[in-house]
């Protein structure tokens, strides 16, 4: 059945998957995006802030608007998008099992044959375990961000944020924009993890940022009513004598993300562990192809970074997939890839970027040694 045969199947319709699909379709590939959610766009539709980056490439544009542009471009290029559809298996001979969702709520499992597959499944939030962490009101910062910016529901009025990476800082800001108060942000490390400008935004909004602090316990009858925080020593052990109780109804956890790699593992893509990239991620080359020929990765699955790099990696994967199907010549593909790599290198500079740049090049080096072994 023609509907089950595609030149390119992209798993995940976030910034990486959509930009891969757009590039593949532009080059003439019959392209399908499979996305588990009600709308494609991944996390873009909850990113209501203006993005950093180069003004030559949409910097200063809000993520939510970039999401809209990508969806419009997908439509223009004839990319087919299946929503509410979950890729549940990836098998040898490049077949993808999908539990396809339909508009009327029906579901049915279909097995797709794909000439090329781009895995752009993204990442999942890490948990932090503490006494009371299962109480209602304790949630991932990403979940809180979905509630306020997509579902327009305030998770609580008084929030304790755990973690000072960019997610913790940005979601704190957006919780205040949505009408909540952020009573404190705690960070176990001695320094703030995310960008100073994000930290400054919430600091001048009155959020106390406590570095060298952790959460001890959340308490409440049926849901969070208060939480204890305290300082930690240089071995990250809590200093109980510094314990302070905060009246909060919500504890949001922004403790980093890890790549969602299950499909790549099912296909025996070789993996590498790198703490800077969030843990295990598939090895890939400069074209984003994994050690399984014809299977590409892009975005957070290939190592947790951010939306700008995901967009660029998606383009790399889409163009390379199209090239390998003979839809675009090698010289053109090389030229486009070198432009993309120039931008990626620019996004991976500065004190926050160089560690990622190094980790990504280690991935590519390991890919090369895995291929020659």
């Amino acid at each position, binding site marked *: 059945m023609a509907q089950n045969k595609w030149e390119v199947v992209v798993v995940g319709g976030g910034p990486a998957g959509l930009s891969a699909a757009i590039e593949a379709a532009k080059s003439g590939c019959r392209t399908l995006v499979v996305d588990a959610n009600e709308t494609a766009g991944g996390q873009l539709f909850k990113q209501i*802030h*203006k*993005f*950093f*980056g*180069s*003004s030559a490439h949409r*910097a*200063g*544009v*809000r993520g939510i608007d970039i999401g809209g542009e990508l969806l419009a471009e997908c439509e223009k290029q004839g990319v087919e998008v299946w929503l509410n559809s979950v890729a549940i298996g990836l098998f040898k001979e490049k077949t993808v099992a999908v539990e396809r969702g339909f508009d009327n709520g029906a579901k049915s499992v279909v097995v797709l044959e794909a000439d090329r597959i781009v895995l752009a499944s993204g990442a999942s939030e890490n948990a932090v375990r503490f006494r009371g962490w299962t109480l209602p009101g304790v949630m991932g910062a990403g979940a809180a961000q979905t509630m306020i910016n997509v579902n327009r529901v305030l998770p609580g009025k008084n929030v304790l944020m755990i973690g*000072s990476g960019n997610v913790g800082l940005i979601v704190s800001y957006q919780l*205040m*924009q949505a*009408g909540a*108060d952020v009573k404190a942000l705690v960070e176990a490390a*001695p*320094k*703030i993890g995310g*960008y*100073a*400008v*994000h*930290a*400054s*935004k*919430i*600091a*001048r*909004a*009155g*959020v*106390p*940022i406590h*570095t060298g602090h952790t959460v001890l316990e959340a308490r409440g009858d049926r849901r969070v009513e208060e939480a204890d925080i305290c300082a930690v020593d240089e071995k990250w052990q809590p200093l109980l004598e510094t314990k302070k109780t905060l009246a909060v109804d919500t504890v949001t956890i922004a403790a980093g993300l890890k790549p969602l790699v299950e499909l790549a593992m099912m296909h025996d893509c070789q993996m590498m562990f790198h703490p800077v990239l969030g843990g295990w991620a598939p090895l890939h080359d400069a074209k984003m192809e994994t050690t399984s020929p014809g299977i590409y990765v892009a975005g957070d699955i290939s190592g947790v970074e951010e939306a*700008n790099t995901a967009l660029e990696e998606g383009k790399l994967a889409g163009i390379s997939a199209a090239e390998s199907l003979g839809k675009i010549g090698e010289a053109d593909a090389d030229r486009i890839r070198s432009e993309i790599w120039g931008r990626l290198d*620019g*996004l*991976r*500079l*500065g*004190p*926050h*970027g160089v560690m990622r740049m190094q980790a990504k090049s280690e991935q590519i080096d390991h890919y090369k040694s895995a291929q020659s072994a």
Partner: protein
Amino acid sequence: MSVENEGYLTIEELKAAGQYPSGARFQEGPVAVIECVQEIPCNPCETACRFGAIRVGEPITNLPKADEGKCTGCGLCVARCPGLAIFIVDKTYGEGLGAVSFPYEYFPLPSEGDEVTAVDRAGRGVCAGTVVKILAPESFDRTPVVTVAVPVGKAEDVRGIERAGQAGGQS
């Protein structure tokens, strides 16, 4: 740096980063203060300025350098900065008064004429202020820029206002 621990900059840190206008320039009228001291990949401020007063260049992780002679204090860069890190400080606003313009993305927006509590970089209330201008044209893309008049001696410290319903500043 306090910005790495508490999240906010001090004027000393800004001066050390070479990011602070001279005293003489402050006396000439409104000027942009760019409070961006970390090398991150970002350059929209450079193209926002019509007078070529902000330079980032290559690589885009360079810190923005403002040319205080070219800066007119027009404020076009304020809403363009994704980090909300640019402010316009006018120490010549009126008799004993200064004015500070800052991006303000909270609801409800204040109204011109509102009496407000002005806060510093740490969110601490430092003085009373009057909202004298609110700009939110479409080109600012939903980042209104609020100008508050404060005692001129506080103009270098004030970087925002208490939000409506906000329970006190940082202690």
